């Protein structure tokens, strides 16, 4: 699938697909702007259980490899805090977003 960071501009019916499937995809929609609180992982405490990665409802936590702490994708994380809630060692802090 083609992703691009540019806004999707559509003239009209002639350059639209038959069905509303990914008019450019949600890749364009940087939902991070919705965030008020930002999760920050303290890697020194992280036990690499990847529970946060499993629970993230937006797939906004990236799995790198088994020996590395997961990385939060700050382009798409909406700041819901489920990762912080689920973390068994409480190594994820929800901090005030800087604007």
């Amino acid at each position, binding site marked *: 699938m083609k992703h691009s960071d540019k806004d999707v501009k559509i003239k009209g019916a002639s350059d639209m697909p038959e069905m509303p499937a990914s008019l450019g995809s949600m890749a364009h929609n940087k939902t991070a*702007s*919705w965030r*008020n609180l930002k999760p920050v992982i303290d890697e020194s405490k992280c036990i690499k259980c990847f529970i946060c990665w499993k629970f993230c409802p937006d797939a906004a936590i990236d799995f790198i490899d088994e020996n590395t702490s997961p990385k939060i994708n700050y382009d798409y994380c909406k700041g819901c805090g489920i990762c912080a809630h689920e973390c068994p060692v409480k190594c994820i802090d929800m901090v005030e977003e800087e*604007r």
Partner: protein
Amino acid sequence: MIEILIHGRGGQGSVKASLALASAASKAGKYVQSFPEFGVERRGAPVKAFNRISDEPIVVRSKIYNPDHVVVLDPTLLHAIDITEGLKEGGWIIINTEKSPDSFTEYTKKFKVATVNATRIAVENHLGSKAAPIVNTAILGAIIRVLKVAGKKDLEEGIKEFVPVKAEANIKAAYEAFDQVKFSKEA
């Protein structure tokens, strides 16, 4: 009929302001409509709320594209979006800012400007927090003073109806803004 557009940011209470304004104008005997931007709203993003106020029943039910007047709840919007888009020439721009109306030379040629420091008034009346003051009721005082769409007592009722929490402080803030609003020279 006059059409008013309120610019704010999600969470600042533009919709509540629009509702309270409609209620106040209704109590003053006018026909009113108040509506938000149709759809999804999110905290911090620029949002709009709309009012129609008329002496006759209002039949038009489309959105407002060419407002007679605009209200700006958040001064940071002045740089973020074109708040004059579609605004009719000679219309009022009512801005929450500490600046004087005549400093807005980019607007004063085509429009009339009124300013009020609603943020300071809100903070002084303990509305919201210092970081995020709730300015929506204070600005209402400025709106009814400038646009004369309702009386102070009408506004008091409107605020009580739609902003029942801390109603007294909100009404006081609105009255202070009513007294403190400044008008551009041309107006």
